């Protein structure tokens, strides 16, 4: 009924200050809630962009990620001669066998170790990543201890510049180039010759095999063939899918952490709404009695007060989203993560996040408003009407 909505709305407007304070509390919760979701969405978007649409990643079956994966030489040899792999303009297969290891590096201005990905690469690794280009210095000479580093690594870590040495895997490695990975996770990696890296870390296996398909339509066949080949124990994914799956784990972690935090905050906001609504019910006791006497049913009273609480939380939601929309202009450049340390990404607002915030705020509204609304609707009429 239109008049119920009007009634609830006007009551909210009438007690401006309480309404503003209560809605602000809810807005803050929604700000945190949506910020967490925007953060994980921004991370997801960045990570997915790390993959190219026609690239394929092969890792060990059920390894989950490159870090846990291991593919031995024999298997790698079978995979790299797959006929679906595209050729470059000089007729060479666009395929790279890579190794990923993690090392600790000291970040600038701190004495804390951050995990950094070292990727063992081959000649085709760079052409396979269209987003990555050498920005300073030169490419690795194959068979040497030369390395190139992502721009974020050069920015954020002590003593990482062209000509300097890094020590890991019981060797000294010389930085010869700095590459720019655009908005991808590669910015936070260090690349070395894969065979040198295998030796120095005494790894007998590769982590992954990356290649470009000459025709995307071949993917399903290729996947079927490789995954069912009795000589192989591998999992074949499109590169974008791979990074999407990678991000899922991380974004889920952020979400779980962030959302549990928000739920704790929301208890405060819900209590605020509850107190506001309780005092509204107490103040309008006689009014409620009158409406009931006139013949309005209990459910109508319940609906009116619940509506008031929902409008309150809706206002909070709009306010919170308004504030969090400004976060989109803010880029997070440091984020220490197990595999994706030093990622640059920004808060990303999506329609889904708006919807989720709306649902979350309405849940707050219902929880905060239900008990006061039940109280309002279950009062005895004569008690509510009594003036003495």
């Amino acid at each position: 009924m239109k008049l119920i909505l009007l009634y609830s709305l006007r009551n909210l407007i009438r007690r401006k200050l309480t309404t503003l304070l209560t809605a602000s509390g809810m807005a803050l919760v929604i700000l945190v809630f949506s910020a967490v979701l925007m953060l994980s969405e921004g991370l997801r978007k960045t990570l997915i962009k790390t993959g190219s649409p026609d690239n394929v990643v092969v890792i060990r079956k059920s390894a989950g990620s490159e870090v846990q994966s291991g593919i031995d030489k024999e298997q790698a040899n079978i995979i790299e001669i797959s006929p679906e792999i595209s050729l470059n303009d000089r007729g060479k297969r666009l395929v790279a066998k890579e190794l990923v290891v993690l090392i600790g590096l000291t970040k600038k201005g701190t004495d804390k170790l951050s995990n950094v990905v070292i990727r063992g690469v081959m000649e085709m690794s760079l052409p396979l990543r269209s987003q990555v280009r050498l920005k300073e210095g030169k490419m690795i000479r194959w068979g040497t201890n030369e390395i190139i580093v992502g721009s974020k690594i050069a920015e954020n870590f002590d003593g990482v510049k062209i000509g300097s040495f890094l020590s890991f895997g019981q060797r000294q490695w010389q930085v010869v180039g700095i590459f720019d990975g655009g908005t991808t996770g590669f910015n936070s990696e260090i690349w070395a010759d894969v065979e040198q890296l295998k030796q120095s870390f005494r790894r007998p296996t590769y982590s992954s095999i990356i290649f470009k398909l000459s025709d995307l339509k071949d993917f399903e066949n290729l996947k079927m063939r490789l995954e069912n080949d009795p000589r192989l124990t591998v999992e074949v994914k499109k590169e974008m899918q791979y990074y999407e799956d990678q991000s899922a784990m991380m974004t889920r972690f952020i979400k779980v952490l962030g959302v549990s935090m928000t739920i704790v905050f929301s208890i405060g906001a819900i209590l605020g709404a509850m107190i506001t609504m309780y005092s509204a019910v107490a103040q309008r006791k006689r009014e409620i009695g009158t409406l009931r006497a006139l013949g309005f049913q209990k459910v109508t009273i319940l609906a009116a007060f619940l509506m008031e609480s929902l409008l309150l939380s809706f206002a909070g939601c709009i306010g919170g989203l308004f504030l969090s929309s400004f976060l989109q202009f803010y880029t997070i450049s440091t984020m220490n993560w197990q595999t994706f340390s030093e990622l640059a990404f920004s808060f990303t607002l999506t329609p889904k996040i708006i919807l989720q915030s709306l649902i979350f705020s309405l849940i707050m509204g219902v929880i905060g408003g239900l008990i006061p609304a039940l109280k309002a609707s279950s009062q005895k009429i004569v008690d509510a009407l009594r003036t003495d």
Partner: protein
Amino acid sequence: MAKLEKIIEIESLYKSFRKGNQIIPVLQNISFDIMDGEFLALMGPSGSGKSTLLNLIAGIDKPDSGSIFVQGIDITNLDERTLSRWRSEHVGFIFQFYNLIPVLTAFENIELPLLMMNLSAKDRKEHVDFALSIVGLYDRKDHYPKQLSGGQQQRVAIARAIVTDPSIIVADEPTGDLDKKSAEDVLNLMSELNQKFGKTIIMVTHDLRAAKYAKSMKYLDKGVLINGSAEIFI
């Protein structure tokens, strides 16, 4: 004047309230009839149970025992939902403190009871306008209660009480909060509703001047009805 037909039949009504573990008897063995078209003043000292009796007749409270037949229906047997609907169709309420909804305009306050009927917005407007014209406040329809004087607020409340055209109007101390002039206006209006529109009115008051506007009186003392001899006690 009165069509000699019973509209309300009250039979051996008992009502008590509980205060802690103490039970306070408020009404004892009340039995009387109210004729259709009557304007009854219910009098008695404060605390004698007038409001309690009125509330029972209006169907906003239930007795401990006894029955109240209104147009043949025992309203003490109706369940909550049915009773609510019954009130919205048959009873108009006038309160001592007007009890208008502060956030609604005069028009919207009067419209409230119509929201429970199945009426179009246009029909509702017609009804509200008619009720407004009866109480003479058509030009104040967009004012909020706090923009109106006490007497005007009570007239809006009267318009709200009659807008659904109920057969019974209950009024609990309707002039209790008004100055003499406004009180007279309100009482004249109630007389008019009774005489011109044939409404059965039950009015609780302890003001003898107000009671004079009624056609008959009943006197309550300590929850017991003293029949037909009210004047003796005043």
